[in-house]
């Protein structure tokens, strides 16, 4: 039996029709048109479906839509602010961290969750933070670099805000 469920996604409450077995990734993609969240394996092993739920990076292909009720869900579509790209999005573009782009949204969401907990991660910590997100194109070199660059930029922005 399907039921109406209200999910808080990217700051808005959205009503969706779900059954007990529906996965969050499918609800995001098929019902809400949030196709930036990808489905690369369906088994929780590639990371392309990563979203942020209550501040933590979560695999939406292993998450039941029903269990997401009452939580704050952020997808790749929700990390821009007033039309301005998130520093991670900007650095992924500028540092050449994007090739086919299929891993990119999940990679950025994992990196965003990492940077929300650790503002100055070491290269090793970045690697650990992204180790659940597969990329077949880049060899990760430019991705790790982009996260480092974005982290520095975000620290600068933080400092400027505090100063102001």
């Amino acid at each position: 039996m399907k039921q109406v469920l209200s999910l808080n996604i990217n700051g808005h409450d959205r009503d969706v029709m779900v059954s007990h077995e529906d996965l969050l990734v499918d609800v995001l993609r098929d019902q809400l048109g949030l196709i930036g969240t990808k489905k690369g394996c369906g088994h929780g092993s590639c990371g392309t479906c990563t979203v942020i739920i209550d501040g933590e990076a979560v695999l939406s292909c292993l998450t039941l839509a029903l269990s997401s009720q009452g939580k704050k869900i952020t997808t790749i579509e929700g990390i821009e602010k007033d039309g301005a790209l998130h520093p991670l999005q900007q650095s992924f573009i500028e540092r050449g961290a994007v090739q086919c782009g299929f891993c990119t949204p999940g990679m950025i969401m994992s990196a965003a969750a990492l940077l929300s907990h650790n503002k100055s991660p070491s290269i090793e910590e970045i690697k650990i933070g992204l180790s659940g997100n597969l990329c077949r194109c880049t060899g990760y070199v430019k991705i790790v670099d982009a996260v480092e660059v974005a982290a520095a930029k975000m620290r600068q922005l933080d400092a400027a805000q505090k100063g102001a």
Partner: protein
Amino acid sequence: MTTDDTKRYAWVGKSIPKVDAAAKVRGKAIYTDDISLPGLVYAKIKGSTVPHGRIVKIDTHKAEALPGVLAVIVGDPTTMKPYSVNNYLPTEQALASGKVRYYGEGVAAVAALDEKTAERAVSLIEVEYEALPFVLDPREAMEPGKPLLHDFAERNINYKGEQDFGDVDKAFAESHLVMENHYYCSYVSHAFLEPQSVVADYDTVKGHLTVHTCIQLPHYFHQTLSRALELPMERIRVIVPTVGGGFGGKTEATPASLVACILSRKLGKPVKITYDREEVFQQNKGRHPAYMRMKMGFDPEGRITACDFDNTLDGGAHSSWGFVTLWFSAALTQLPYKLPNVRFRGRRIFTNKPTTGAQRCLGGVQVRMSMESLLDEAAQKLGIHPFHIRMVNAVETGHQTQAVFDVRHSELKRCIETVVAKSGFCEKYGKLPFGRGIGLACGHYSTGGAYLLYKSNRPHSTANIRVDTEAGTTVFVGATDIGQGSTTVLTQMVAEVLGLDLAEIHIVCQDTTLAPMDNGTYDSRVTYGAGHAVKRAAIDARDKLFGIAAIKLDVNPEQLECAGGFIYATYSPKKRIAFREAVHQYLSTVGPLFGTGSYTPPQPSGDYQGKLIGPTPAFGFTAQVAEIEVDVETGKLKIIKYWEAGDCGKAINPMSVEGQVEGGISMGLGQALFEEMKMSKEGKMENPNFHDYRIPTTMDMPEIDATIVESFDPTAPFGNKEVGEGPVGPVIPAILNAIYDAVGVRITEVPVTPERILRALGKLDQPSKNKL
């Protein structure tokens, strides 16, 4: 621009972010599975549960009776014509009829209102098989009396080939040293992250089919659809959405793409099929496992006197890129070293496994593994340094191989010198503490093939440009961007010729109705071939504008240039007219402004079996060094650091080049260390998921130091050559050579698991199953 005047370039040679990167980081890029059309329905395929069997009966009644099911189809030899990528020895069908040849081969399909209903219906289909004996090992499959997959293929030999250049036996007899060894290169898959997906939309009124799918070669796919569906090409439109990685794996029609078309034609509704990850692995078309014997002769200085290469390729169940891979493996022995005598004996064998096909550095990974390993073995015997044995043999500009491949430009020696200097190879080789080692290997790859997959003399790339005041500059070109960045580099090239800003150039590609024919994204040919086509089209349009500008500025049109949005006189730059203004004048006084350009590669001039495959307009080169550490107690291997120096001609976009090199090394490293498709004794793939088929993660990647060696190929549109495939080749042998330096054992099979290392060290005693 036939000489290297790169310092004057505004866009070529600059590390420009990819033109589609912003859409991708915002989650706005549309991949095939993201497409939804009005009235879209979903289909699923029922895969076989035996690796070889006759289909006795398929009962679809229960599936048909399930509410929401719209159609159920089964394999039918009259409506599902056999196909292959080049229509040579076509063996594959949308759905198998008669018998199945690998576990997972489709036998029936269901279209339903939603995906879950289609899945449920597929599970209700009952198939009865008469199980047939099967073969999984190509060496066994060739033996007399073994079960045959296809009636036409005696002893399961799909294709075999021989090449002889010079007198190999005489050269061996006269050689100072002759070395020989056997190597096994493993069964791996592309593991692109986007599973193949298709949306087929047949208009029953117009009799017209539109297919949206992630395909690297829309032109060949278009032809396959036309033949298999018996529809003229002009009634089919192939649209390629954003492609989530290909690496060769999206070069052929998937059975699902044909099934979706058949169902859409039957129902008059758009039909979507997206593979799950297990289906992606079962459809495979990845690298051919190879059982290789490499034999080479040497003079006292280490010069190669002869090369004798024997290669048995495991083709899996169907033809795919089989004969191309076989001949490529022959062709790739011809370089990057000077070989006066060469012999090749090869065969591609059918087995009851997921089919192998084209994977990045096709044919090259196998050949490089054997040749670069044996070169080090010979150097050791001769008492010559691995660096010197490569320098003495490396090809130079102007070299012609025995198979009549012209190396019009090579900086291989500088690549070797650079990578050796940067890595400290000479200071470290043979001098690191036990357990730690360093290895060197070289490679090359073709830059665009000289052949079409069908008999035709037409250009391999074509481009049209429309210039006006409404849409600006629009380039129609058949190239497919699979993530490597072709749209970006083609934009840079057109902006360079016309002196415009990148944002003023709009590329329309990946659509067989809008964009003219292009061979497609394979064989590292796009930046070179499609690059020539767009450059020529841009020059064609520009020269028309120069005619108008010359009158306006009172200058000879040959003394005009484009830069910064202006057309100006070369020798009196103050005389200028805005590009936009010149376009306006042209439209008012002459009419519509179009330019066109095409590219046809030089044709092969050799006269031997397989001559069409291998000769290419240019070759990219690469030299690589791996420093590694082996734990002799556990057999675990760690890559400490990796160096590469490459000759890709002029790098149109250095940041993109680095990305190709780093990604290529990563793919090579995965195959070297842990990737392998494993088959059970029952002929079923044991690890069709990313938990058990592990590809490199952030934690597996060493620091990579990649250097672009300054270079310029005068035959290329802007001096550029390939970089997408060559860098994969040397990774395995660089690591194997480093292992020898570290612990003194020669490993000849990949992946180099801890078990293989311990066995080589004599700490385990079971024999290897893949040893020839």
